[in-house]
Each structure stands twice: as C-alpha cells, then as structure tokens.
C-alpha cells in the first residue's frame, strides 16, 4: 500500500511540462515529416515532368533532324521578359512531297504547340509540364551552304506544385541530316502563311 502511495501519480505541473515537451517535439517531427512528404511529391512530379520533357525534346529532335530551310520567329530567344511567343518553322519530307512544320511556344499557357501544313494546332507538351520558356536559334556557321544547327533553349518545371519559377535551364542542339546541297528546289510559301504566322518576317520556303 505504501509503494502504491509512493508512485501515486504525477502532479498536474509534471504532467503539463511533459505534455508540452512532447507536443513541441511531435510538432517539430511531424512538420519535418510533412515537409519530406511534400519534397517527395515534388521529386516524383519532377521525375515525371523531366521524362515527359525528354520525350517532347526527342520528338522535336527527330523532326528537326529530318527538316530543312529552318527559320525562327522574329522574337525567338530575345531578351528575357520581352518574348511572349517564339517558334521555329521548317520543311520536312512527307511522302513524295514536303510539309511545312511550325513549333510555337506560348507564354500565356506555357506550352509548345505544333502545326503541320497550316492545319490544326496540337500541343506537344504534356499536362504536367510547364514550359516557362522555349525558344530556338538557327545557326549556319560560315556560309549558307553549311548544315543547319538548331539550338533549343528552354526552362521547364513541373506544373501546379508551386515550384514553377525554379525550372531547369535546358539547352540542346540538333544538327539536321539534310544539307542545303541535298535540296534540289525551294518550294513556294503555303497560301495564307503570312496572315497566320506574321511573326516570321520572311517566308522561308
């Protein structure tokens, strides 16, 4: 009976101190745990977004590799914050003829869209990819007879995770397999081209 009385319980003060310490420790640990889960979520989305980005770049590269007569829009890769859209237009072989292909980046929707032969425009960026910027540079080092070198510049991040501003600054360059000397004749510009794509100063075709 004496033993029971000795261990008769904590005082209210002891209990309060213990509870306070415990709740402080728990809130720190659970905060960290929630933070880890959040980071994990961002990481998973970043992996998904980067594999989708790689897929998009792969599609773009494949088409550019087979393209020729490249031209970029007038504001492509201009100073940051002034470019609201940028794009590249070129021709590529399609069956017996050729097709005009345009890739356009839209700043408002942060997407990249593709248009073929003045047809309907389709987005090529997947839903979880935020293209904060995509622009193109065309280089023909030396002379007009040299091969086309197309540099794709982009800032890509996962969408809807609050990390849009911290995208990866990507750059890659593709060398077209078609040399200027391989092209026998330059086709004419498609009808309605300058009305639909006024941002291309001259008709490249």
């Amino acid at each position, binding site marked *: 009976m004496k033993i029971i009385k000795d261990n008769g319980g904590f005082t209210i003060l002891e209990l309060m101190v213990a509870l306070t310490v415990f709740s402080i420790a728990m809130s720190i640990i659970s905060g960290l745990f929630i933070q880890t889960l959040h980071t994990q979520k961002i990481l998973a989305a*970043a992996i998904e977004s980067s594999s989708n980005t790689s897929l998009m770049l792969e599609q773009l590269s494949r088409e550019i590799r087979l393209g020729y007569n490249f031209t970029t829009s007038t504001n492509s890769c201009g100073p940051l914050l002034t470019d609201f859209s940028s794009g590249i237009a070129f021709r590529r072989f399609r069956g017996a003829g050729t097709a005009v292909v345009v890739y356009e980046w839209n700043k408002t929707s942060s997407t990249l869209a593709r248009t073929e032969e003045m047809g309907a425009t389709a987005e090529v960026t997947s839903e979880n990819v935020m293209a904060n910027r995509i622009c193109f540079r065309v280089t023909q080092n030396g002379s007009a007879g040299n091969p086309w070198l197309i540099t794709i510049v982009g800032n890509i991040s996962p969408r809807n995770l609050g990390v849009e501003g911290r995208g990866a600054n990507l750059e890659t360059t593709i060398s077209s397999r078609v040399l200027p000397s391989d092209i026998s004749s330059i086709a004419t510009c498609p009808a309605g081209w300058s009305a639909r794509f006024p941002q291309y100063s001259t008709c490249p075709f």
Partner: protein
Amino acid sequence: MSRRAKHNEGQIMIESIVAISIALTALVSALSLVSNSLHYNTEADQKLVGSHLAAEGIEIVRDLLDRDFAAGAVWGSSLPPSPFQVSYDTAAAITTQNGNPLWYNNGTYSYQQVGTSINSHFIRNITATKIGANEVSVSSTVTIAGMDPIVIEDHFYNWRQ
C-alpha cells in the same frame, strides 16, 4: 522522505537522458531525410540539363563533320586534337577552354562571357578518335561538381563520300 527524494532523482536523470536521446535520433533522421530529398531533387535537375548539354556536344561534332563534307574538305579535318570544346555559337572547335565551365546567359550555355553571364558549373570536354579513314568515335563528357560525370559516346561514318 529523504530516501524517497533520492530514489526519484536518479530515475528522472536516466529517463531524461533516454528521452532526449530518442528525440535527438528521431530529429536527426527526419532532418537527414529532408536534406537527402532536397539533394536528390537538385541532382535530378542537374543531370537532366547535363545530359542534354552532353548530347549537344555530340551534335555539334556531327555538324563539324557535315561542314567538312559541305566545304569539300577532308572528312574529319576540322576536328582538333582531343580533348577539345565546342559550343553552338562557336564556328570551329576550340582547345583553349579545357576544364573551363560553360557560361550561362539568357537561356544559353556558351564560352562567351558577358556581363550578365553566370558560371553554370557544367564543364564539357569532347574527345574524338579516328578509327580508320571513314569512322570517328566521339565521346562527350559533362562534369558537374560533386556528381558522377555524364558521358555520351557516338560513332560517325563518312557515309556521304
């Protein structure tokens, strides 16, 4: 009374040591989990950028070889002794930037350093080895501080001859 007080004092000491150790262990492991996640996040981004830069190196060498053909020069004659560096805005391959980082400016990576350029910490070196007259083995290595280097290799053939 004095006996009871003495007895309880010892218990409190051991209990608190154990409790603090457990709390510390939990905190440290939780913290390392967070910092590891952040580290992997950054590393994944760096690797994505690095692998595209490495691929770019290979493509520019392909362009140099095509230019040899377009100019009617000996195929592969524009490749300097390895290792060398290339960038999209440099007309020829260069050998003066060995070990130097690419400079990041307005979205692009190059060796030209202007006022607003930032050190990207990506170092790219290209090695090209001629295997016979009509084959070149090209290897593009991008080194990022604190990470394994990214190496891409490709073989080009003088198929246009």
